[in-house]
């Protein structure tokens, strides 16, 4: 096995009743999924997609998007999953950066994007995975193919079709994160780096052919690779979880019960919502064996609440930037105490580390090959080594204990992670200064009374304006990822400046941190 596409072929060989569960609960055995992926690949190749072309996927989670993604890989394309409910401007920015040959979407997601920023989408072909006609989308001069779900719609899925032969170091997928100037940057993972992750992750999540893995993280988030590749690799069953379930914890818990899910992998934010608002006492979730979390620290008290609510589940903390995939993990021995420090754990196999001024550098087989079309940035961030994967400086400060376990101590720079989403404060500040009435803005991380991290914004307004927090939040919500929307706003009459006359952001951020903040709005009100 050398390619990510082999994971699906491997799954098809198990023939043990495992497969892919769609949103409606129907199960497609892996053999059928593999055949449908070949059908999708045939359509893409016939449409002119060549190896190395980008295929952007703008579809919510479902069996159809899983198949489209694997089909694109089989066609030799580089897959770029996009956020189907993301801020249109952000999505359009990613499309501009990756320059795709095809965008695969649904009538809904394409129309949503087409409303105005589509002017930026210079993409010759759009595939629509729905029979709904695309009347409102306004896509002049673009070729549009409507494919029914290849699983049922395509009989072209013959095994006679030959697919391009790929090498392990060919790029397989791009994960975009925000850049400090507001231009998104693409992390390039190859078949080799993706597969190295998929193999170790299958072991560390303890996947077996009887496992049923909930596919919760959206496709554009790299945590979805567990479901996309590790799950078929282990011959386990992947349960697609719809996007709306992310916003309805009680619906998510219902789905987990109905599908007898055994494995969860999600960011702490979502797991906390599940525990606090998921009506767990009304659900039978005893099938859950393992819960993995990643993306940000889990407040120990809240994690203990989750573990006490689901006492039969073992919990693992996974750590790693999107550039390297997961590189350490830590199995919790039991519910942590309130002030316990939960380590990020010990290194994964074949990884080596060095500490430079307490910053963790790793050399890992799961490391990216570089940043998309950014050779200078790549050279700056990756330090080549003889016969070893390059060093990557994570920017994370860590301690190492005598048992070889790392504990996260903070960032070396201003990067902030909220709900597992990497945010560049400067980019959000830049955007906020465009908001109606805002003259200057400084954004900083805060920790709510419940231990939940979020952003708060300090703003200086035009003298004629008064602060309306809800309006500000809504304004931001259409333009940045949900995690980047400040949970509270503080009005300043002016900002302190540094000796060179710039805004003293360090000082303002310290004031943001110490200011009293109201209950974070994601809390339900007490009953």
């Amino acid at each position, binding site marked *: 096995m050398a390619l990510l596409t082999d994971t699906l072929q491997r799954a098809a060989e198990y023939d043990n009743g495992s497969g892919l569960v769609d949103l409606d609960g129907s199960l497609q055995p892996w053999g059928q999924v593999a055949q449908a992926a070949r059908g999708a690949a045939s359509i893409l190749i016939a449409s002119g997609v060549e190896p190395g072309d980008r295929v952007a996927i703008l579809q919510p989670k479902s069996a159809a998007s899983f198949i489209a993604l694997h089909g694109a890989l089989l066609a030799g394309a580089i897959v770029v999953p996009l956020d189907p409910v993301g801020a249109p401007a952000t999505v359009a920015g990613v499309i501009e950066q990756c320059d795709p040959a095809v965008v695969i979407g649904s009538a809904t997601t394409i129309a949503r994007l087409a409303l105005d920023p589509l002017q930026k989408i210079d993409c010759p072909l759009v595939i629509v995975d729905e029979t709904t006609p695309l009347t409102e989308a306004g896509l002049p001069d673009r070729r549009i193919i409507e494919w029914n779900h290849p699983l049922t719609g395509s009989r072209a899925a013959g095994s006679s079709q030959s697919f391009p032969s790929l090498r392990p170091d060919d790029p397989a997928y791009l994960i975009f994160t925000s850049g400090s100037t507001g231009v998104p940057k693409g992390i390039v993972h190859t078949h080799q780096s993706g597969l190295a992750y998929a193999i170790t992750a299958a072991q560390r999540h303890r996947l077996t052919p009887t496992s049923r893995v909930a596919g919760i993280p959206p496709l554009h988030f790299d945590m979805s690779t567990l479901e996309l590749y590790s799950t078929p690799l282990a011959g386990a069953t992947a349960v697609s979880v719809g996007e709306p379930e992310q*916003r309805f914890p009680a619906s998510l818990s219902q789905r987990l019960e109905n599908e007898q899910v055994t494995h969860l992998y999600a960011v702490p934010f979502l797991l906390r919502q599940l525990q606090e608002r998921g009506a767990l006492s009304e659900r039978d979730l005893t099938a859950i064996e393992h819960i993995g979390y990643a993306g940000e620290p889990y407040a120990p008290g809240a994690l203990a609440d989750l573990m006490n609510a689901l006492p039969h589940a073992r919990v693992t903390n996974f750590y790693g930037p999107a550039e390297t995939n997961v590189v350490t993990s830590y199995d919790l021995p039991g519910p942590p105490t309130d002030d316990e420090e939960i380590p990020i754990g010990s290194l994964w196999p074949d990884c080596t580390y060095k500490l430079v001024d307490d910053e963790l550098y790793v050399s890992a087989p799961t490391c990216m090959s570089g940043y998309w079309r950014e050779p200078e940035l790549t050279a700056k961030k990756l330090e080549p080594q003889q016969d070893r994967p390059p060093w990557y400086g994570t920017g994370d400060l860590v301690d190492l204990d005598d048992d070889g376990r790392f504990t996260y101590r903070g960032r070396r720079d201003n990067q902030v992670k909220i709900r597992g989403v990497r945010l560049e404060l400067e980019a959000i500040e830049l955007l906020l200064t465009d908001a109606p009435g805002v003259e200057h803005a400084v954004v900083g991380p805060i920790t709510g009374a419940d231990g939940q991290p979020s952003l708060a914004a300090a703003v200086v307004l035009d003298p004629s304006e008064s602060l309306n927090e809800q309006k500000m939040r809504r304004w931001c919500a259409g333009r940045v990822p949900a995690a980047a929307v400040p949970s509270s706003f503080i009005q300043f009459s002016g900002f302190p400046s540094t000796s060179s006359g710039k805004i003293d952001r360090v000082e303002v951020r310290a004031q943001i941190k110490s200011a009293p903040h109201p209950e974070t709005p994601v809390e339900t009100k007490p009953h």
Partner: protein
Amino acid sequence: MDESFGHDLLKMINAEISLDPSVEIVADTDLLLTGLVDSLGVVDIVAWIEDRTDLIIDPGDIVIENFQTVEQMVRFVKISVDD
């Protein structure tokens, strides 16, 4: 539940919750698949309904079937008030 409840809810969602002011939300607009309402919006809607009706909504009732459209919300509230 008073007559104007559905009308007021629709008006409030269009004015304060919708992430895309260019879309006119009507009673049967799917709010979830289109990304018009995020998780923050759901919480705000629940709080508005609780304030307006004096209902205390059980977390187990905050599910997709009850909140996908304004129509479904009105139906859910009507049933809850009658109970």
